[in-house]
């Protein structure tokens, strides 16, 4: 590991020791954070997977049902009928915080008007009724899936980031600081020894001259 380009002085040594301490503490904290995020992620992804299984099936069903309904009516009629939704849904979008990641939190409130279907029964085939009913049922699941999938994506991103940070600290930052500290300590010891030898030598020389 490359040692840092610093002067081998006591002051630098002191600074580096403080940095090492911070780096080690940061490393521990980040590692704990990553572990907890991974734990939560694996819970959430299982839930997402189960929900996606359901939604994949349901949505395909709705669309298939609707295309049957569409086949039984003219295109202009269908567009006319479905362009005026009477069932209005309200979507409350907030964010919640999972391990310092801002993930979406969605709340769906349906304002069902008196009529269940947004059209009169006279013009519409029963197939269309089925598809609209199914769509209404799948909507709740879809919103929940949107929330969960986004959460998984964002958590995955964050986990990757903090893993990279942990690795950078563990394999680059901390070893390089340790190496530099070793280098400075050795250099300082060396200086001390050389000073000591010089003193002994001078003492010898003085003794010889006087003696």
């Amino acid at each position: 590991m490359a040692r840092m380009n610093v002067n081998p002085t006591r002051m630098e040594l002191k600074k580096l020791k403080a940095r090492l301490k911070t780096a080690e503490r940061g490393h521990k904290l980040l590692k704990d954070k990553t572990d907890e995020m991974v734990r939560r992620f694996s819970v959430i992804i299982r839930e997402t997977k189960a929900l996606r299984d359901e939604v994949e099936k349901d949505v395909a069903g709705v669309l298939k049902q609707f295309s049957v309904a569409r086949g039984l009516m003219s295109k202009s009629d269908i567009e006319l009928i479905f362009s005026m939704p009477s069932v209005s849904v309200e979507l409350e979008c907030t964010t919640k915080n999972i391990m310092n990641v801002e993930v979406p939190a969605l709340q769906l409130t349906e304002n069902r008007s008196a009529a269940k279907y947004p059209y009169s029964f006279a013009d519409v085939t029963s197939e269309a009724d089925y598809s609209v009913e199914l769509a209404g049922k799948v909507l709740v699941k879809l919103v929940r899936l949107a929330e969960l999938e986004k959460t998984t994506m964002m958590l995955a991103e964050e986990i990757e980031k903090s893993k990279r940070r942990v690795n950078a600290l563990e394999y680059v930052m901390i070893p390089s600081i340790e190496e530099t500290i070793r280098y400075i300590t050795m250099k300082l010891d060396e200086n001390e020894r050389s000073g000591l030898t010089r003193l002994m030598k001078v003492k010898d020389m003085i003794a010889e001259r006087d003696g």
Partner: protein
Amino acid sequence: MKGKMAIIGDGDSVLAFKAVGIEAFSVNHPEKARDLLKKLAKTHQIIFITDALAKEISDTVAHYTASAYPTVIPVPSKNGSNGYGYEILKKEMEKALGVDILFKDGKGEIGE
């Protein structure tokens, strides 16, 4: 914050969702879907997009993962799923955990 939902689909079948309060848009070309998605991303919080289209414009879809909103989610089209939704899940899982904990047999079944 009040949110709005939209669905982008190939073919008219997405119109079914219009009846339950989602704004439905039907496009027949991936490039049109891309432009539409960019436009809708500014005004809508949840955008569903049928997976055949989502796969074609996955680079644009990936663009929206960074922040909480808008949420762009693939849904199967009337011809059934093409597995794009699972592909995303799998990718995220490998990114975060490095191992596959759900699709062990590679068929999209729960492995455990």
